[in-house]
């Protein structure tokens, strides 16, 4: 059975355990974010537009060129989306919102690497005074979101004053915005560079009390399943984060796992 991975979650192309769990969890939450982008139809419009663009680019899909990396095979989910797959997006978005809510800060400054045209994000961006001050790292995810997400009629008909910022990777590495962010949500596709330079820059963005939400630090559970962390490429990055003396670091091994790290000083 085909399997695709999306954000924090792994799902099979049917309503598997995790999709059922997300549906039930959403039904039991009062932060369901019902709206135009809580529906499969709207999500499918987005998926179709992005898929068509990637197809037009005619990218190299051979195994030696892409391997099994999520960021490079995520289009599998877009092409054959399972029923109620918007619940997956709801789940990922809810964790970000939950953390930022619980921080109890006014208009917290957020950095993300992967925006989606979903209600839970768009509501936070709507002006004139957005409830979250979002900055998106420059990259292909920002391109997709701007080109095919913000232009969808469901977005333009419901949001007239979207506000956010963008930061280039080189500026991040040069220390732009250091110590000014309340929360950062990124995945290994952003953090993993030739060394820890991006990890250090990301951690450096946070102010005291600020929180890093690092998704999928297990490599889709492979570091958990292998049982030999010293032979897993994610381990050195994770241990580098864990070694930060001025952070409380929690590695939570649910599904793909997540690292929550809070800056102490």
């Amino acid at each position, binding site marked *: 059975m085909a399997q695709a991975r999306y954000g924090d979650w792994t799902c099979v192309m049917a309503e598997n355990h995790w999709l059922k769990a997300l549906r039930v969890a959403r039904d039991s939450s009062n932060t369901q974010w019902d709206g135009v982008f809580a529906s499969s139809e709207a999500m499918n419009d987005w998926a179709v537009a992005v898929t068509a663009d990637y197809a037009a*680019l*005619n*990218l*190299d899909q051979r195994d*030696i*060129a*892409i*391997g099994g*990396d999520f*960021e*490079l095979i995520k289009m599998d989910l877009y092409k054959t989306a399972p029923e109620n797959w918007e619940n997956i997006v709801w789940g990922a978005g809810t964790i970000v919102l939950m953390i930022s809510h619980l921080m109890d800060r006014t208009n917290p400054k957020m950095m993300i690497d992967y925006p989606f045209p979903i209600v839970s994000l768009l509501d936070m961006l709507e002006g004139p005074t957005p409830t979250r001050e979002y*900055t*998106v790292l*420059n*990259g*292909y995810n*920002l*391109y997709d979101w*701007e*080109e095919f997400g*913000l*232009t969808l009629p469901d977005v333009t008909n419901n949001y007239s004053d*979207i*506000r*956010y*910022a*963008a*930061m*280039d*990777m*080189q*500026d991040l590495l040069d220390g*732009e*915005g250091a110590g000014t962010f309340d929360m950062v949500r990124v995945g290994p*596709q952003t953090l*993993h*560079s*030739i060394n820890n330079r991006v990890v250090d820059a990301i951690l450096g963005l946070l102010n005291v009390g600020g929180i890093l939400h690092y998704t999928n630090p297990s490599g889709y559970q492979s570091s958990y399943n292998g049982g030999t962390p*010293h*032979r*897993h*490429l994610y*381990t*050195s990055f994770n241990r580098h984060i864990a070694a930060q003396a001025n952070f409380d670091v929690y590695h939570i091994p649910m599904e793909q796992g997540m690292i929550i790290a809070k800056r102490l000083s």
Partner: protein
Amino acid sequence: MTVRTTEDTVGSLYSNDAELVFVEGEVARIMFTAGLDWADIDTTTIDDIVNKIRETYEEGGSLALGTEGHRQAADDWNFVRQQHLIEVVRRAWRRRAMAIGRA
């Protein structure tokens, strides 16, 4: 370049030039680490880079020195470096192809 905002330009903050500069820097660093040269990028394929990484960071080199049956720390180190560099270069290579396609 400083941080860009949407005060006047909603939907157009993506910078293809900045994306290309960053990912080409990633590819160049990895090529150098593996023993390749960015000056040859026009004639280098992703196959060349992945294969060169596998060659440079070959797992099992220690075993060939008469330590049959015993994995040495150097083998594990090579294996992790190999997997790490291949992961990053595959991603950067794809991002580069996307940026070139959108230039």
